[in-house]
């Protein structure tokens, strides 16, 4: 154990430690606090230099009410969900299948294929930008949710396949061979034996991919353009253009936009952290 566990140290040492952690945390979250304070004020309040003082009471929820009712933010949130959820489901399905084949059906070139998947996942987006956009336009999907879903599925499959392959490889071959003797086909084995055994891995990788896709900004700029389709990240930036003169509204919008990923994180953090550390062990993203 390092550093030395403080569990058995004197209460005063532990109290001192707690103060140190709390102080560091306060500094760490200071930028977030600043924007939270701004989100509660009116622009006039800010212009008057009232920074730390209590905002005019009537103002407290005004910015949030404006953002939720007078802007397209709710639409953008919905758009983000409609892209992210199918993308996560599709990625995990295809990557589990490919991961199983790569883990348990060794064939010539299987290692090379895996390297292509990992390498492809680290390619800078800009190197794909023009051809992917052309392709999406050519197949008539420009400015549609499906364009984003397909691209995210394809791109995230690289990382996700490696992740699933490493988990599936740890399943003992005996379990699969027993089923093969019974006459089960490979697809049955995949569905009945492999998938149930890797449920924890699926949870981890799903949360991870949810965060990646939800937070994507680049492709939301490149593949779609209308407000009806645009996900939250790109939407937020367009709202900022609309509210150029009103930082408090921008602040409230940003904080609302942060709610879904933060909520997912706090609900499923065990899986997310397991996924991140496992993923980084095999492949940094």
């Amino acid at each position, binding site marked *: 154990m390092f550093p030395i566990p403080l569990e058995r140290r004197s209460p005063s040492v532990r109290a001192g430690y707690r103060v140190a952690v709390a102080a560091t*945390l306060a500094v760490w979250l200071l930028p977030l606090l600043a924007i939270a304070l701004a989100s509660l004020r009116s622009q006039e309040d800010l212009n008057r230099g009232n920074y730390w003082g209590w905002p005019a009471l009537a103002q407290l929820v005004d910015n949030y009410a404006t953002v939720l009712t007078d802007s397209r933010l709710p639409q953008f949130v919905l758009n983000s969900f409609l892209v992210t959820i199918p993308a996560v489901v599709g990625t995990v399905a295809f990557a589990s299948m490919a991961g199983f084949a790569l883990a348990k059906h060794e064939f010539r070139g299987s290692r090379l294929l895996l390297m292509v998947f990992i390498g492809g996942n680290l390619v800078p987006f800009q*190197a794909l930008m023009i051809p992917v956009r052309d392709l999406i336009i050519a197949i008539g999907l420009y400015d549609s949710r499906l364009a984003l879903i397909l691209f995210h599925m394809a791109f995230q*499959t690289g990382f996700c396949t490696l992740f699933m392959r490493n988990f599936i490889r740890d399943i003992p071959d005996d379990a699969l061979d027993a089923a093969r003797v019974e006459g089960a086909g490979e697809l049955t084995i995949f569905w009945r034996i492999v998938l149930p055994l890797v449920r924890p891995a699926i949870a981890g990788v799903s949360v991870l991919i949810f965060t990646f896709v939800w937070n994507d900004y680049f492709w939301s700029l490149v593949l779609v353009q209308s407000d009806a389709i645009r996900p939250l990240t790109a939407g937020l930036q367009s709202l900022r253009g609309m509210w150029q003169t009103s930082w408090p509204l921008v602040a409230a919008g940003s904080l609302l936009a942060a709610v879904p990923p933060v909520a*997912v*994180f706090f609900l499923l953090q065990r899986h997310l952290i397991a996924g991140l550390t496992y993923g*980084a062990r095999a*492949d*940094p993203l």
Partner: protein
Amino acid sequence: MRTRRGLSTVVLLAPACLLFSLFVVYPLVRGIALSFYEWNGVDAKTWVGLDNYRELFADPVFATALANNFRWLCCYVAAPLLGFGLALLVNQRLPGMQLARSLFFMPFVLSQVVVGLVFSWFFHSRFGLLNEILGGLGLATVAPLDSERWSIYTMIVAGLWPQTAYCMILYLTGLATLPRELTDAARVDGARRWSLLRYVVVPQLRPVHFIVFMVCAVAALRSFDYVMIMTLGGPYDSSTVLGYYMYEQTFLSQRYGYGAAIATVLLALMSCIVFALLWHLFYRERR
């Protein structure tokens, strides 16, 4: 039996390979090819050979972008250091520490758009917290976002926030896997806090250091979102990076071929990192 398994292998791999080839492999090759053409995105393409690259290496904005990516890379070394420090700080099993760890980690799950907006506000010349603090201390206020010299660093600071959180988590898992006997034995042998850290803990975490540095290098080269949100490369292109300059040349100047050439340079830089990583990964796995 063997052929049946062969067939099922194909079925299992087909969807992933198909999508990946269509949206990653094929565009990658086509993007490189495009960098040898002059193209405005609409009319016919003209073959220009290496002209785009020749122009690139004489382009002062490209030099700025490259230098800024390099600055980004250098400054990101701070993320592993700070992350390791935070990991050491919070690696205790007292009640409430789980929540503290989560709060330290939280910036990582925010989108870069939100982080960019948070720091645009933090550095805002009139209303930013930074100037509130400087003013409170009786110091002169600053406008780093409007400064040709400093605007790049405002974005690096923004990027370091989630990046440090990520490094912290990786180090925390590394610390959790340290063999207990090792630290205990070293303590029995009389190793004090600093020598234990320096001669036992840090060397034991070598695989984690490698991954953490790789992750940071990749992130530094990928920077785009912060530039788009915080400075748009300005003032006067002083804070542009390769990723953003490529986007700007392609969509704002309609120079698709030139943009593709910038992207190819970025790809080449990234490839150096990727090859080091793949080599390390598969070399270790074979051993």
